């Protein structure tokens, strides 16, 4: 069975779904992510679905479950990159994904997580912070 890789970048776990998942693969991803949240202590999860040309009710439900489980484990989930045709189809299917935060792309997803968790270390503007504290200590 194929497996969807989970990457750790700073305080964020990044999942990019690149395959047409069998139902079992989606369930495995749900378990893998929960494990990784606990072992890494990450507080943010980004799921990139820009490569998916459909999201059916099973995948939709899996995404919702991942978001709920992450929240219980003190992590925020953002689903990013949904294609327009997928959004139209999902809503018509009757799934509006309540409780799932979405962003248009990975970059905006990272921004969203950074805003909801000011302490989140995404290793972007660390230098600036250090410069600030150095300036305070200098005199």
């Amino acid at each position, binding site marked *: 069975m194929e497996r969807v890789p989970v990457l750790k970048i700073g305080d964020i776990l990044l999942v990019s779904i690149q395959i047409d998942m069998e139902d079992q693969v989606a369930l495995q991803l749900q378990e893998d992510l929960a494990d990784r949240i606990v072992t890494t202590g990450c507080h943010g999860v980004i799921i990139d679905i820009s490569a998916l040309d459909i999201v059916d009710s099973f995948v939709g439900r899996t995404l919702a479950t991942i978001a709920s489980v992450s929240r219980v484990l003190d992590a925020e989930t953002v689903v990013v990159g949904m294609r327009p045709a997928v959004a139209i189809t999902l809503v018509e299917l*009757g799934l509006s994904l309540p409780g799932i935060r979405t962003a248009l792309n990975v970059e905006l997803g990272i921004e969203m997580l950074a805003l909801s968790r000011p302490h989140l270390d995404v290793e972007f503007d660390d230098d600036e912070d250090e410069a600030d504290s150095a300036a305070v200590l200098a005199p």
Partner: protein
Amino acid sequence: MSEESRQVPVASDQDVVRVRQLVRTVSVEAKLSLVDQTKLVTAASELARNTLVYGGGGYVEVSRVRNEIRAGIRIVFADQGPGIVDLDLALTDGYTTGGGLGLGLSGARRLVDEFVIETAPGEGTTITVTKWCR
């Protein structure tokens, strides 16, 4: 009428993926719009999963069809499972006997142009859906 048809057995998760791939291929060949391709593949995914989970497996047949004015795609989902006892209830949003969201059947119906269901307790279920090119 039917120009050609292709059949896929549905006996596992992998077969549901194969059904999606076949429907996608035929949708592209038939030049459905991107949104209509997405709707049809999504509907096929829901119904093929039902064939597997509720019907105990069966087969899916995909064909290109044509009426006086338009071309389209017709897909048949057939199983020899227990059948559906209360069809109205089964077609209600949110009703499920399988622990899902209860959107498969009702949602799939909204995503296609024609939806015909033949079922009786103990007699299996056959669902035929059609999507016409615009």
